[in-house]
Protein backbone atom coordinates (compact mmCIF):
# COMPACT_ATOMS: atom_id res chain seq x y z
CA UNK A 1 0.00 0.00 0.00
CA UNK A 2 1.51 3.31 -1.07
CA UNK A 3 1.49 6.04 1.58
CA UNK A 4 0.73 9.14 -0.53
CA UNK A 5 -2.71 9.87 0.86
CA UNK A 6 -2.60 7.92 4.10
CA UNK A 7 -4.14 10.79 6.11
CA UNK A 8 -7.32 10.72 3.99
CA UNK A 9 -7.67 6.94 4.36
CA UNK A 10 -7.15 7.09 8.14
CA UNK A 11 -9.66 9.97 8.45
CA UNK A 12 -12.31 8.06 6.44
CA UNK A 13 -11.91 4.84 8.46
CA UNK A 14 -11.79 6.77 11.76
CA UNK A 15 -15.07 8.51 10.90
CA UNK A 16 -16.59 5.13 9.94
CA UNK A 17 -15.44 3.62 13.26
CA UNK A 18 -16.92 6.55 15.22
CA UNK A 19 -20.24 6.32 13.31
CA UNK A 20 -20.60 2.54 13.68
CA UNK A 21 -19.40 2.64 17.31
CA UNK A 22 -21.89 5.41 18.07
CA UNK A 23 -24.76 3.45 16.50
CA UNK A 24 -23.89 0.31 18.50
CA UNK A 25 -23.43 2.27 21.77
CA UNK A 26 -26.72 4.12 21.26
CA UNK A 27 -28.53 0.82 20.57
CA UNK A 28 -27.14 -0.85 23.72
CA UNK A 29 -27.68 2.12 26.08
CA UNK A 30 -31.21 2.86 24.82
CA UNK A 31 -32.23 -0.80 25.14
CA UNK A 32 -30.88 -0.98 28.71
CA UNK A 33 -32.67 2.27 29.66
CA UNK A 34 -36.03 0.92 28.44
CA UNK A 35 -35.46 -2.43 30.21
CA UNK A 36 -34.69 -0.54 33.44
CA UNK A 37 -37.83 1.61 33.09
CA UNK A 38 -39.97 -1.51 32.54
CA UNK A 39 -38.41 -3.21 35.57
CA UNK A 40 -39.17 -0.09 37.67
CA UNK A 41 -42.85 -0.25 36.69
CA UNK A 42 -43.00 -3.97 37.51
CA UNK A 43 -41.38 -3.31 40.89
CA UNK A 44 -44.09 -0.70 41.61
CA UNK A 45 -46.76 -3.24 40.68
CA UNK A 46 -47.83 -1.52 37.43
CA UNK A 47 -48.35 -4.25 34.84
CA UNK A 48 -49.59 -4.50 31.26
CA UNK A 49 -53.08 -5.98 30.72
CA UNK A 50 -51.63 -9.13 29.09
CA UNK A 51 -49.34 -9.68 32.10
CA UNK A 52 -52.25 -9.18 34.52
CA UNK A 53 -54.41 -11.67 32.60
CA UNK A 54 -51.59 -14.23 32.56
CA UNK A 55 -51.12 -13.80 36.32
CA UNK A 56 -54.84 -14.39 37.03
CA UNK A 57 -55.81 -18.03 37.79
Amino acid at each position, binding site marked *: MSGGHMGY*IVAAYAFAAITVGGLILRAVLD*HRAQQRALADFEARGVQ*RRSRRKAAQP
Partner: protein
Amino acid sequence: MAENNSILTALANPTRFLALSARVLPWMAGLSAVLLAVGLWLVFFQVPDDYQQGATVRIMYIHVPAAWLSLFLYAMMTGSAIGTLVWRHPLADVAQKAAAPIGAAFTLLCLVTGSIWGKPMWGTWWVWDARLTSELVLLLIYLGIIGLWRAIEEPSAAARAVAIMTLVGFVNIPIVKFSVDWWNTLHQPASVFRLGGSTIDASMLWPLLVMAAGFTLLAVSLHLSGMRTEILRRRVRALSLLEAQQRERAPVAAVVAPGVAR
Protein backbone atom coordinates in the same frame (compact mmCIF):
# COMPACT_ATOMS: atom_id res chain seq x y z
CA MET B 1 -50.20 -17.61 0.02
CA ALA B 2 -52.40 -18.26 3.07
CA GLU B 3 -49.44 -19.95 4.75
CA ASN B 4 -47.26 -16.88 4.00
CA ASN B 5 -49.94 -14.64 5.51
CA SER B 6 -50.09 -16.72 8.68
CA ILE B 7 -46.27 -16.60 9.02
CA LEU B 8 -46.38 -12.80 8.59
CA THR B 9 -49.23 -12.51 11.10
CA ALA B 10 -47.30 -14.62 13.60
CA LEU B 11 -44.13 -12.53 13.14
CA ALA B 12 -46.11 -9.31 13.41
CA ASN B 13 -47.08 -10.09 17.01
CA PRO B 14 -44.69 -7.87 19.07
CA THR B 15 -44.15 -10.46 21.84
CA ARG B 16 -43.36 -13.19 19.30
CA PHE B 17 -41.14 -10.76 17.39
CA LEU B 18 -39.18 -10.02 20.58
CA ALA B 19 -38.66 -13.74 21.25
CA LEU B 20 -37.63 -14.58 17.67
CA SER B 21 -35.36 -11.54 17.22
CA ALA B 22 -33.62 -12.31 20.54
CA ARG B 23 -32.59 -15.66 19.05
CA VAL B 24 -31.56 -14.32 15.60
CA LEU B 25 -29.80 -11.11 16.67
CA PRO B 26 -26.59 -12.53 18.26
CA TRP B 27 -25.94 -14.74 15.21
CA MET B 28 -26.55 -11.91 12.78
CA ALA B 29 -24.36 -9.46 14.71
CA GLY B 30 -21.63 -12.11 15.06
CA LEU B 31 -21.67 -12.90 11.35
CA SER B 32 -21.53 -9.19 10.57
CA ALA B 33 -18.44 -8.81 12.81
CA VAL B 34 -16.72 -11.79 11.12
CA LEU B 35 -17.48 -10.47 7.60
CA LEU B 36 -16.26 -6.96 8.48
CA ALA B 37 -13.06 -8.38 10.04
CA VAL B 38 -12.37 -10.51 6.93
CA GLY B 39 -13.27 -7.55 4.70
CA LEU B 40 -10.86 -5.21 6.52
CA TRP B 41 -8.08 -7.80 6.29
CA LEU B 42 -8.70 -8.09 2.53
CA VAL B 43 -8.83 -4.29 2.13
CA PHE B 44 -5.61 -3.54 3.99
CA PHE B 45 -3.51 -6.64 3.17
CA GLN B 46 -4.77 -8.10 -0.12
CA VAL B 47 -6.33 -5.43 -2.31
CA PRO B 48 -3.88 -3.82 -4.76
CA ASP B 49 -3.60 -0.04 -5.14
CA ASP B 50 -5.62 1.37 -8.03
CA TYR B 51 -3.51 2.37 -11.05
CA GLN B 52 -5.02 5.88 -11.03
CA GLN B 53 -6.25 6.45 -7.47
CA GLY B 54 -3.43 4.69 -5.60
CA ALA B 55 -4.18 3.70 -1.99
CA THR B 56 -7.18 6.06 -1.69
CA VAL B 57 -9.27 3.40 -3.46
CA ARG B 58 -9.55 1.82 0.02
CA ILE B 59 -12.04 4.54 0.98
CA MET B 60 -14.39 2.91 -1.55
CA TYR B 61 -14.86 -0.09 0.79
CA ILE B 62 -16.72 2.03 3.33
CA HIS B 63 -18.10 4.73 1.03
CA VAL B 64 -19.93 2.40 -1.38
CA PRO B 65 -21.57 0.14 1.28
CA ALA B 66 -22.66 3.30 3.17
CA ALA B 67 -24.19 4.68 -0.05
CA TRP B 68 -26.02 1.38 -0.74
CA LEU B 69 -27.33 1.28 2.83
CA SER B 70 -28.56 4.88 2.69
CA LEU B 71 -30.84 3.79 -0.19
CA PHE B 72 -31.63 0.29 1.19
CA LEU B 73 -32.78 1.61 4.57
CA TYR B 74 -34.95 4.26 2.93
CA ALA B 75 -36.52 1.59 0.70
CA MET B 76 -37.18 -0.49 3.84
CA MET B 77 -38.78 2.54 5.52
CA THR B 78 -40.97 3.03 2.44
CA GLY B 79 -42.16 -0.60 2.65
CA SER B 80 -42.95 -0.09 6.34
CA ALA B 81 -44.74 3.19 5.56
CA ILE B 82 -47.06 1.27 3.22
CA GLY B 83 -47.60 -1.26 6.05
CA THR B 84 -48.53 1.61 8.38
CA LEU B 85 -50.93 3.31 5.98
CA VAL B 86 -52.58 0.22 4.42
CA TRP B 87 -52.66 -2.29 7.31
CA ARG B 88 -52.14 0.16 10.22
CA HIS B 89 -49.83 -2.36 11.77
CA PRO B 90 -47.93 -1.17 14.88
CA LEU B 91 -44.88 -3.28 14.02
CA ALA B 92 -44.63 -1.42 10.68
CA ASP B 93 -44.59 1.87 12.66
CA VAL B 94 -41.85 0.45 14.86
CA ALA B 95 -39.81 -0.68 11.81
CA GLN B 96 -40.11 2.81 10.25
CA LYS B 97 -39.02 4.58 13.42
CA ALA B 98 -36.06 2.28 14.12
CA ALA B 99 -34.67 2.57 10.56
CA ALA B 100 -34.53 6.39 10.34
CA PRO B 101 -31.52 7.15 12.60
CA ILE B 102 -29.53 4.23 11.13
CA GLY B 103 -30.29 5.42 7.59
CA ALA B 104 -29.30 8.98 8.52
CA ALA B 105 -26.00 7.74 10.02
CA PHE B 106 -25.07 5.74 6.90
CA THR B 107 -26.05 8.65 4.63
CA LEU B 108 -23.79 10.96 6.68
CA LEU B 109 -21.01 8.34 6.51
CA CYS B 110 -21.42 8.17 2.72
CA LEU B 111 -21.24 11.98 2.37
CA VAL B 112 -18.25 12.42 4.70
CA THR B 113 -16.17 9.55 3.25
CA GLY B 114 -17.05 10.72 -0.28
CA SER B 115 -15.87 14.21 0.60
CA ILE B 116 -12.61 12.85 2.11
CA TRP B 117 -12.10 10.74 -1.03
CA GLY B 118 -12.99 13.66 -3.31
CA LYS B 119 -10.32 16.03 -1.99
CA PRO B 120 -7.26 14.05 -3.18
CA MET B 121 -8.97 12.67 -6.33
CA TRP B 122 -11.06 15.62 -7.59
CA GLY B 123 -9.15 18.41 -5.85
CA THR B 124 -12.24 19.53 -3.91
CA TRP B 125 -14.17 18.47 -0.80
CA TRP B 126 -17.56 19.20 -2.37
CA VAL B 127 -19.28 20.05 -5.67
CA TRP B 128 -22.98 20.72 -6.16
CA ASP B 129 -23.35 17.95 -8.75
CA ALA B 130 -26.54 15.89 -9.02
CA ARG B 131 -25.31 12.77 -7.13
CA LEU B 132 -23.80 14.64 -4.20
CA THR B 133 -26.70 17.08 -3.93
CA SER B 134 -29.40 14.38 -4.11
CA GLU B 135 -27.55 12.35 -1.43
CA LEU B 136 -27.44 15.50 0.76
CA VAL B 137 -31.20 15.94 0.16
CA LEU B 138 -31.63 12.31 1.30
CA LEU B 139 -29.84 13.16 4.58
CA LEU B 140 -32.12 16.17 5.05
CA ILE B 141 -35.18 13.96 4.45
CA TYR B 142 -33.95 11.46 7.05
CA LEU B 143 -33.40 14.31 9.55
CA GLY B 144 -36.86 15.72 8.77
CA ILE B 145 -38.41 12.29 9.41
CA ILE B 146 -36.56 11.95 12.75
CA GLY B 147 -37.74 15.46 13.67
CA LEU B 148 -41.35 14.62 12.79
CA TRP B 149 -41.22 11.47 14.98
CA ARG B 150 -40.14 13.67 17.90
CA ALA B 151 -42.67 16.43 17.20
CA ILE B 152 -45.81 14.26 17.51
CA GLU B 153 -46.23 12.59 20.89
CA GLU B 154 -48.88 9.97 20.06
CA PRO B 155 -46.97 7.11 18.30
CA SER B 156 -49.69 5.99 15.85
CA ALA B 157 -50.48 9.59 14.79
CA ALA B 158 -46.74 10.23 14.35
CA ALA B 159 -46.40 7.02 12.32
CA ARG B 160 -49.11 8.07 9.84
CA ALA B 161 -47.60 11.55 9.36
CA VAL B 162 -44.10 10.07 8.97
CA ALA B 163 -45.39 7.40 6.54
CA ILE B 164 -46.80 10.09 4.23
CA MET B 165 -43.57 12.08 4.42
CA THR B 166 -41.54 8.91 3.74
CA LEU B 167 -43.61 8.08 0.65
CA VAL B 168 -43.23 11.64 -0.68
CA GLY B 169 -39.48 11.52 0.01
CA PHE B 170 -39.14 8.26 -1.95
CA VAL B 171 -39.20 10.39 -5.12
CA ASN B 172 -35.58 11.25 -4.29
CA ILE B 173 -34.37 7.60 -4.33
CA PRO B 174 -34.38 7.06 -8.13
CA ILE B 175 -32.91 10.56 -8.48
CA VAL B 176 -29.95 9.53 -6.27
CA LYS B 177 -29.53 6.23 -8.12
CA PHE B 178 -29.83 7.49 -11.70
CA SER B 179 -28.46 11.05 -11.27
CA VAL B 180 -25.10 9.92 -12.69
CA ASP B 181 -26.87 8.67 -15.86
CA TRP B 182 -29.36 11.50 -16.26
CA TRP B 183 -26.93 14.40 -15.76
CA ASN B 184 -23.30 15.14 -16.47
CA THR B 185 -21.76 14.72 -13.02
CA LEU B 186 -18.25 14.81 -11.53
CA HIS B 187 -19.23 11.63 -9.67
CA GLN B 188 -18.50 8.49 -11.69
CA PRO B 189 -21.38 6.39 -13.12
CA ALA B 190 -22.41 2.98 -11.66
CA SER B 191 -19.56 0.48 -11.80
CA VAL B 192 -20.83 -2.56 -9.83
CA PHE B 193 -24.55 -3.10 -10.56
CA ARG B 194 -24.87 -2.15 -14.22
CA LEU B 195 -26.01 -3.65 -17.50
CA GLY B 196 -23.06 -5.43 -19.07
CA GLY B 197 -21.55 -6.41 -15.71
CA SER B 198 -19.21 -4.80 -13.21
CA THR B 199 -16.29 -2.71 -14.45
CA ILE B 200 -14.26 -3.38 -11.29
CA ASP B 201 -11.53 -6.01 -11.35
CA ALA B 202 -12.31 -9.18 -9.34
CA SER B 203 -9.39 -8.50 -6.96
CA MET B 204 -11.21 -5.32 -5.84
CA LEU B 205 -14.80 -6.44 -6.39
CA TRP B 206 -14.84 -9.43 -3.98
CA PRO B 207 -13.52 -7.48 -0.97
CA LEU B 208 -16.13 -4.81 -1.76
CA LEU B 209 -18.92 -7.42 -1.76
CA VAL B 210 -17.63 -8.88 1.55
CA MET B 211 -17.60 -5.41 3.15
CA ALA B 212 -21.06 -4.66 1.73
CA ALA B 213 -22.43 -7.94 3.16
CA GLY B 214 -20.83 -7.17 6.56
CA PHE B 215 -22.24 -3.62 6.65
CA THR B 216 -25.67 -4.82 5.51
CA LEU B 217 -25.85 -7.44 8.28
CA LEU B 218 -24.68 -4.78 10.74
CA ALA B 219 -27.44 -2.40 9.60
CA VAL B 220 -30.09 -5.15 9.80
CA SER B 221 -28.83 -6.14 13.29
CA LEU B 222 -29.00 -2.51 14.42
CA HIS B 223 -32.47 -2.24 12.92
CA LEU B 224 -33.72 -5.36 14.72
CA SER B 225 -32.20 -4.09 17.95
CA GLY B 226 -33.81 -0.68 17.41
CA MET B 227 -37.20 -2.32 16.79
CA ARG B 228 -36.88 -4.32 20.01
CA THR B 229 -36.04 -1.14 21.95
CA GLU B 230 -38.93 0.75 20.36
CA ILE B 231 -41.39 -2.01 21.40
CA LEU B 232 -40.09 -1.70 24.98
CA ARG B 233 -40.35 2.12 24.78
CA ARG B 234 -44.03 1.80 23.78
CA ARG B 235 -44.66 -0.55 26.68
CA VAL B 236 -43.02 1.95 29.05
CA ARG B 237 -45.23 4.71 27.60
CA ALA B 238 -48.37 2.55 28.00
CA LEU B 239 -47.45 1.74 31.62
CA SER B 240 -46.75 5.38 32.48
CA LEU B 241 -50.20 6.32 31.07
CA LEU B 242 -51.78 3.46 33.04
CA GLU B 243 -50.05 4.60 36.23
CA ALA B 244 -51.23 8.18 35.66
CA GLN B 245 -54.82 6.91 35.18
CA GLN B 246 -54.61 4.89 38.39
CA ARG B 247 -53.38 7.95 40.30
CA GLU B 248 -56.25 10.04 38.93
CA ARG B 249 -58.83 7.42 39.96
CA ALA B 250 -57.47 6.83 43.45
CA PRO B 251 -58.74 10.08 45.16
CA VAL B 252 -62.15 9.75 43.40
CA ALA B 253 -62.58 6.26 44.86
CA ALA B 254 -61.68 7.61 48.31
CA VAL B 255 -64.37 10.31 48.03
CA VAL B 256 -67.03 7.92 46.70
CA ALA B 257 -66.35 5.19 49.26
CA PRO B 258 -68.01 6.90 52.30
CA GLY B 259 -71.19 7.56 50.29
CA VAL B 260 -71.37 3.92 49.27
CA ALA B 261 -70.92 2.87 52.91
CA ARG B 262 -74.00 4.93 53.91
